[in-house]
């Protein structure tokens, strides 16, 4: 007796599980049972599991009977003529979707040639094992699996052409590549997915060599000439937003150029781009701190708004200004209403970005790297045919990562560029490398893809032959311009008087616990004190009671709130954080008494 589980709940028992399972499958193929159901016979426990729930990962396979796939040439012809659809194949039971359980009962052939009478299914294409981005990696079957994953992941971060209506969209944090290209070495998925309509990279010439050490540790060297011709250029869009909010008591925000007597008024210079309606005009070149939308809000506390005060003078400044470290050109101004009917202003800032040192680029094989140097075109090494590479990639990135596909793509790209055609690099189903090599030989190049190179500065011939060719390179959205950060002076936190944290708040870089230990270990005591001086304060202390006293700057005297002004009061130099903890002790009812002593 075998137990039968429907969606993991015991449904009953059967005597002939194998037969039942077979019958179930037959009926499903005939369309008598929903194609969404799966059945699985566990040969260890002899249990039968029927699954109909949502959320199972399933994949389509061609059904095989007696070593022959049910889909024949006839079907393929019909498909081509549009006389048949995918849905028809499914309904006729030629293709079925399997879940993880049912797959255990099946014997799936990888390609048609491998079929034996024992096989139950055939892959539609070996490519169907991979996800979308993974199948966009050319020659993926030549890569180590981790690199394939890395390559797939990197493509998602590529700067490309994400939507044709970008000019009327207000998306946050958008990058747009200026001259996107279709890859020379492509896979089947590029066609299926219409990749040419939203390409995300450019075909460039890559030389695998070192260049003065500026491409070590995964860095790449860029050719200034290529940048000038538009390689890797992109635009960064970022919208800012302001709403005229309504508050209790009929008060509203007002979008206008703020009056000078408004609380928190910046400076006239900051508002210089605003037009009469309080909004910036398009194509204005703005820098950090410039106001984009002028706005004032009613006073924060209504109680303070009594009959004697003048309403306008108590209004607060709440304009939207460009954030710290940002720059750009006003691209688009949108005036509309939000769901509650409040006036809504959106201003999009555009910032053109030419690649610079620190920007991140990658091939499609997880070979990401950061620009280490931009070399003038005339100083770049050149090949005997006069080609200068756009990127110089370090050979040290290859052996440990074993990205053979990176090398094959380079070769394929070279053949494609020279013969003027696209190279099929579909994983498991690509143009063989041997054929590419032969074609390269016929095109008048060395079969192994090597070329003689000359030093761009001295003109000397290089001793080594350089492996060079064309590759599809992607610019990734991580650009230094968004990450660069430093601080000398800047904002502090209200509570602790220590510097703020994070780039957005123009914060400091924390000298942490372990960093502190290194200073101590070096005995650099005074340097350590200086590092921690960020919240240094001078505090008067009453010698009598040991508590913090008051220093009155106006009358130039100090006094202790407890002991009066007849006691001796001395100033001490401590961190504000320590003053804070003393206050916290006091709030707990602990009396932290300071006993001062001359240090010398």
């Amino acid at each position, binding site marked *: 007796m075998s137990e039968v589980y429907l969606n993991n709940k015991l449904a009953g028992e059967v005597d002939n599980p194998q037969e039942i399972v077979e019958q179930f499958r037959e009926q499903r193929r005939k369309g008598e049972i929903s194609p969404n159901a799966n059945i699985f016979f566990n040969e260890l426990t002899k249990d039968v599991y029927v699954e109909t729930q949502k959320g199972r990962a399933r994949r389509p396979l061609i059904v095989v009977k007696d070593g022959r796939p049910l889909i024949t040439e006839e079907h393929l012809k019909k498909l081509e003529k549009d006389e048949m659809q995918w849905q028809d194949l499914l309904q006729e039971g030629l293709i079925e979707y399997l879940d993880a359980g049912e797959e255990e009962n099946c014997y799936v052939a990888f390609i048609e040639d491998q079929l034996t009478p024992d096989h139950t299914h055939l892959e539609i294409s070996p490519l169907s094992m991979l996800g979308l981005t993974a199948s966009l990696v050319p020659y993926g079957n030549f890569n180590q699996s981790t690199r394939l994953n890395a390559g797939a992941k990197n493509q998602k971060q590529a700067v490309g052409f994400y939507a044709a209506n970008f000019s009327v969209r207000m998306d946050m944090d958008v990058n747009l590549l200026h001259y996107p290209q279709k890859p020379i070495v492509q896979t089947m998925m590029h066609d299926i997915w219409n990749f040419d309509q939203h390409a995300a990279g450019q075909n460039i010439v890559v030389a695998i060599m070192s260049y003065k050490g500026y491409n070590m540790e995964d860095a790449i060297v860029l050719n200034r000439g290529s940048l000038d011709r538009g390689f890797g250029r992109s635009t960064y869009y970022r919208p800012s937003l302001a709403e005229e909010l309504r508050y209790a008591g009929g008060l509203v925000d007002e979008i206008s150029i703020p009056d000078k007597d408004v609380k928190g008024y910046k400076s006239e210079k900051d508002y210089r781009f605003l037009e009469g309606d309080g909004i910036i005009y398009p194509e204005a070149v703005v820098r950090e701190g410039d106001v984009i939308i002028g706005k004032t809000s009613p006073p924060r506390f209504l109680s303070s708004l009594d009959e004697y005060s003048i309403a306008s003078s108590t209004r607060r400044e709440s304009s939207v200004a460009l954030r710290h470290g940002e720059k750009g050109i006003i691209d688009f101004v949108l005036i509309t209403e939000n769901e509650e009917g409040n006036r809504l202003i959106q201003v999009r800032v555009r910032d053109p970005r030419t690649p610079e040192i620190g920007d991140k680029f990658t091939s499609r094989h997880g070979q990401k790297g950061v620009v280490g140097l931009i070399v003038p075109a005339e100083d770049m090494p050149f090949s005997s045919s006069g080609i200068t590479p756009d990127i110089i990639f370090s050979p040290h990135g290859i052996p440990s990562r074993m990205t053979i596909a990176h090398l094959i793509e380079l070769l394929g790209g070279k053949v494609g560029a020279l013969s003027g055609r696209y190279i099929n690099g579909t994983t498991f189903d690509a143009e063989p490398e041997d054929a590419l090599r032969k074609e390269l030989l016929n095109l008048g190049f060395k079969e192994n893809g090597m070329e003689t190179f000359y030093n761009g500065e001295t003109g000397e011939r290089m001793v080594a032959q350089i492996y060079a060719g064309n590759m599809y390179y992607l610019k990734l959205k991580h650009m230094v311009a968004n990450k660069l950060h430093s601080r000398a002076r800047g904002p502090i936190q209200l509570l602790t008087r220590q510097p703020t944290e994070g780039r957005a708040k123009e914060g400091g870089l924390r000298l942490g616990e372990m960093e*502190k*230990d*290194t200073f*101590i*270990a*070096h*005995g*650099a*005591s*005074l*340097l*350590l*004190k200086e590092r*921690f*001086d960020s*919240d*240094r304060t001078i505090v008067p202390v009453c010698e009598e009671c040991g508590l913090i006293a008051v220093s009155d700057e106006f009358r130039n005297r100090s006094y202790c709130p407890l002991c009066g002004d007849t006691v001796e009061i001395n100033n001490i*130099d*401590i*961190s504000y*954080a*320590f003053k804070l*903890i003393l206050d916290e*002790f006091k709030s*707990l009812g*602990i*009396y932290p008494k300071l*006993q001062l002593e001359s*240090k*010398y």
Partner: protein
Amino acid sequence: MGDLYKEYMDKLPARVMQELKEYLPGSVSQSKLRQVLDKTVEEYEESKAAPGECIGNVSAESIGEPGTQMTLNTFHFAGVAEMNVTVGLPRIIEILDGRKELSTPSMEIYLNKPYSQGKDIKKLALSVKETLFNDIAVEFLINIVDLSITIVLDRGQMKSVGLIPSTVVNAMKKQTKGYIVKADSNEIILKSRSKDVNLNNLYNTKEKLKKVHLKGIKGVKQVLPVKRGDEFMIITAGSNLKEILRLDFVDSSRTVTNNVFEIANVLGIEAARQAIINEVFGVIENQGLNVDIRHIMLVADTMCTTSVIKGITRYGVVSEKSSVLARASFETPIKHIINAALVGEIDFLESVVENIMINQPVPVGTGLPTLVTKVK
């Protein structure tokens, strides 16, 4: 020649002197020898830590940095050795925390001649191993109707550990006062003398019986005779140094346990200090890391200076710190501040952490020297 060595006796440590004597040829001339000794003294003075050098911190970093690499490797090495002993980072944490209960206590028992040559090695090993009543019983049956316990003995097992039923019964009788014991060839039946015995009682007795010690050394759960080099020895799981050292076939000068607390109790705190050093250094070497032994010696010294082993925890050496602020800055601050407030503790701000908190120069390195003359 000997005089010259004597002259430098106070300037160089004995170990260095001995090494010099070993390596220098006897024919070395008086002046050459003096040159060598002077150079050695110079080098020795040079390698001493300077006053104000923050040696504790340097030790912590020197052990801590390689320690980060250790975590990853730990799993690969576990279970490879002949017996499952905690190694790697977990073991170091165990020692430095000063934990009394080890996850895998173990001993290495060296033997005297002729046993170290392999004589009776299996017998000796077996004699050391602890046999509990549970080990020789097949099953314990509680008869609910007449409230008796029937124990079925495993004759084969008894024979292999060298026990006869009468000794078993005798050992048992001490634990089972108030019961009538009837024994035959492979069954023991216990019945209570008093009438008011209930099932609960009976069950407790049964559980107690399982743990009755019959033979061997208490705590030695497993034994493994091995040959190390050309010498036979016994490795155990479970440890009882005191009892093992009493056995006359044991070489008491070399036998060790990995339980440092036991060593402290049996051999004293100095031995425990050495044991800590050996254990920690052993793990570090085992991982292929390179840490100078002096760093570990410093840690071991810190743990042992109070004559009891104190772990590097808030209950151990950290609680010994004189500064309230320093203690409060390391785990459970509220406890320390409340206690300090209750007794009116004074913090003299003499150490590093407190001075960082109030942002004053720390009294190490360049922060240490001060003016001797009073400025008035």
